[in-house]
């Protein structure tokens, strides 16, 4: 069943020494060894565990919201409880799942390995950032137990400053603290990429995943402090009665929106850029081709990071900013679509005439490309001033950003999880079930969110627990889709956990992919490499000899695959 993936360069003989006796999982034992670890790989797994818990909590709130919307009347939840449910869904999913997801788990685990480093630049800081994230996590869970907040995930004043409960204070502090965690992670990655690259790993040879992480880190470092100070001011407003955002005291609630979106729009790119990096890896690995337009994909990551800071005003088209500002922000929002489109075109060009094998990670990658394209194009609808006046605060917006966040980031996250799972755990999962899950997620996702485009275009506003009966059919479809989607998430949880105990032992390079992470043993040794690698070839140096025939084992010459030249120093 797994023969497709057994393209180990040295063949069967290599299998015997494939699992090193000492690797990062068994190097030390005990809870304390894990909780005090400075190994970036273990910290990545600590994050994986933590954000899986948050994903589960956020998912429960999503199901509550969808169940309430099954019928037009507000019957399951009161309007107050509904407000809390969608607010907590948003807060937990955005700040505690999506923002840390790919960077904190796979960035932590693979960024140092992919550049041939022993660890990140500041291992202690790395562990500290996990603890800071956990403190923030406990704060938000406490908020939840105290009854949650109902401001929406955006904390707009006056909801957050004069309305709502005093839980806002704790929730705002939690996100403030969480911000420090992402600042430290971003800082660590930037310095690591600058100073820790292996000999020969030039900027032009960096895997595109690393480029994407680098661009993401720039946004984290530049954007997060602004969010921190903004929520700090909300805190000061509630506790010390500063009037910065309160019109009664002479302040301006629109200022909050400007400061908030100055971070939170770039934060959209914090969430999607790492996903794009993953897709670049997957598309190359499963079409056995050099990524088309490497330079353009790398540069477009940076372009997104920069231009992403100049488009925040498109969240304020109807908030009362000047018409001229709205005009400029509209144009800039169209411009930010260009680097995203460059990526999509380049991935497609990479697929063209590639030797495509439809393994489960590739299914997620293809899903990503399709759904991200829909999400991106509907973003252009909303960037157009005239259309936005009609669509503002409708389900069209909800559908649009879920196509980016779930159809994009979450699919990339699942793709990354499946692609790197054998390397992380040393075990193979059941590929058949993985394919079923990938298709289930894709179908469930579209059934959930495509009807929301329609119902939003017809005028159903967001944030209400009741709606007019005309919208019921589309809402029932959406809730049905959400149930299928839930199954699509439960499946991987089952077969991945199963693989930990019963899975086949994974070889060094089960996909026959290219990159330093596939050169080292599985699971990687504590210091990542037995000898420091020397890089002599560009990223994705796939050749025709690497072609793997789907379901038919490998062709002659596949011994080259994944064999990035590694020599001892």
């Amino acid at each position: 069943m797994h023969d497709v993936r057994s393209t180990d360069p040295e063949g069967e003989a290599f299998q015997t020494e494939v699992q090193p006796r000492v690797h990062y999982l068994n190097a030390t034992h005990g809870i304390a060894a894990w909780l005090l670890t400075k190994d970036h790989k273990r910290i990545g797994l600590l994050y994986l565990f933590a954000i899986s818990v948050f994903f589960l909590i956020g998912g429960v709130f999503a199901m509550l919201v969808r169940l309430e919307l099954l019928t037009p009347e507000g019957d399951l939840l009161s309007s107050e409880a509904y407000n809390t449910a969608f607010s907590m869904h948003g807060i937990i999913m955005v700040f505690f799942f999506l923002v840390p997801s790919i960077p904190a788990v796979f960035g932590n685990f693979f960024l140092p390995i992919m550049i041939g480093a022993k660890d990140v630049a500041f291992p202690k800081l790395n562990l500290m950032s996990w603890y800071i994230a956990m403190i923030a996590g406990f704060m938000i869970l406490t908020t939840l137990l105290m009854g949650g907040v109902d401001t929406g995930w955006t904390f707009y004043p006056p909801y957050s400053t004069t309305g709502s409960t005093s839980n806002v204070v704790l929730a705002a502090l939690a996100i403030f603290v969480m911000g420090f965690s992402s600042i430290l992670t971003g800082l660590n990655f930037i310095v690591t990429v600058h100073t820790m690259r292996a000999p020969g790993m030039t900027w032009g040879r960096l895997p595109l995943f690393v480029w994407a992480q680098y661009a993401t880190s720039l946004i984290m470092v530049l954007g997060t402090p602004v969010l921190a100070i903004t929520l700090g001011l909300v805190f000061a407003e509630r506790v010390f009665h500063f009037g910065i955002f309160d019109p009664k005291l002479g302040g301006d609630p629109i200022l909050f929106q400007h400061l908030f979106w100055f971070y939170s729009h770039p934060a959209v790119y914090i969430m999607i850029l790492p996903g794009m990096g993953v897709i670049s890896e997957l598309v190359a690995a499963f079409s056995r081709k050099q990524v088309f337009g490497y330079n353009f994909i790398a540069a477009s990551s940076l372009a997104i990071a920069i231009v992403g800071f100049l488009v925040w005003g498109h969240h304020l088209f109807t908030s009362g900013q000047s018409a001229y500002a709205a005009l400029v922000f509209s144009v800039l929002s169209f411009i930010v679509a260009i680097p995203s489109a460059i990526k999509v075109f380049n991935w497609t060009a990479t697929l063209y005439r590639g030797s495509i094998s439809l393994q489960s990670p590739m299914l997620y990658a293809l899903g990503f490309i399709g759904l991200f394209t829909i999400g991106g194009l509907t973003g252009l609808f909303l960037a157009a001033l005239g259309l936005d006046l009609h669509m503002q605060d409708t389900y069209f917006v909800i559908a649009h950003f879920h196509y980016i966040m779930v159809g994009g980031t979450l699919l990339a996250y699942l793709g990354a999880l499946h692609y790197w799972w054998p390397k992380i755990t040393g075990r193979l999962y059941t590929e058949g079930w993985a394919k079923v899950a990938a298709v289930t997620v894709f179908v469930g996702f579209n059934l959930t969110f495509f009807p929301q485009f329609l119902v939003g275009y017809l005028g159903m506003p967001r944030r209400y627990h009741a709606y007019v009966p005309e919208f019921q059919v589309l809402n029932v479809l959406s809730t049905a889709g959400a149930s299928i989607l839930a199954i699509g998430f439960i499946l991987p949880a089952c077969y991945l956990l199963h693989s930990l105990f019963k899975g086949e032992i994974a070889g060094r390079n089960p996909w026959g992919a290219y990159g330093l992470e596939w050169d080292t043993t599985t699971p990687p040794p504590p210091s990542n490499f037995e000898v420091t690698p020397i890089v002599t070839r560009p990223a994705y140096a796939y050749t025709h000899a690497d072609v793997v025939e789907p379901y038919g084992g490998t062709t002659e010459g596949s011994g080259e695959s994944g064999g990035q030249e590694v020599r001892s120093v």
Partner: protein
Amino acid sequence: MLGMWVFLLTEVLFFGGLFMAYILYRGWYTEAFHEASRHLSVGWGFFNTLVLIASSLTMALAVRAGQTTNRRGQLLFLTLTIVLGTAFLGVKVIEYADKFTHHLVPGAHFAFTPSALAPGAELFFSLYFAMTGLHALHMIIGAGIMLVMLYMAWRGRFSTEWYTPLEISGLYWHFVDIVWIFLFPLLYLIGGLSVFGGGAGH
């Protein structure tokens, strides 16, 4: 080293949000801001500016002493830096206390004449406390870092070969000074120098 520069970049943006709010409301409430600014003690502010500039000098000398493996110099200049930093914070306490006694702290007890300018003045004082408070917090953290440096210097850890912690703490210290160099004119001096030496609230 690069890490500290990147960190300071985040600090610039952290304070940047407050400066943004300052720019907006100073534009909206220009007259109230000028009037409210006259209630700050330019004398104390000027004194504190000198104190901080002096502390930047002693900090630079401490780093220099690290580079030349001069342990006595490190101990002397780090101690001086801590003393100057503490003096700055002491003056801030005096100033804050003065604001409390004159009902210039935002909230229910805020009182300002002429009352037509009160909303703008209250915003000014909100920003005054937010900006100088955040700055003072950075000073306290800085003083804590200096204590650690002092301990490390006492143990003779710094030499020509290795003085990185001293150098990056110095970077942080200078950054906090520079923030004050912006805060002083923006908060204390915009009302003109006519009331040099004392708060108009007296």
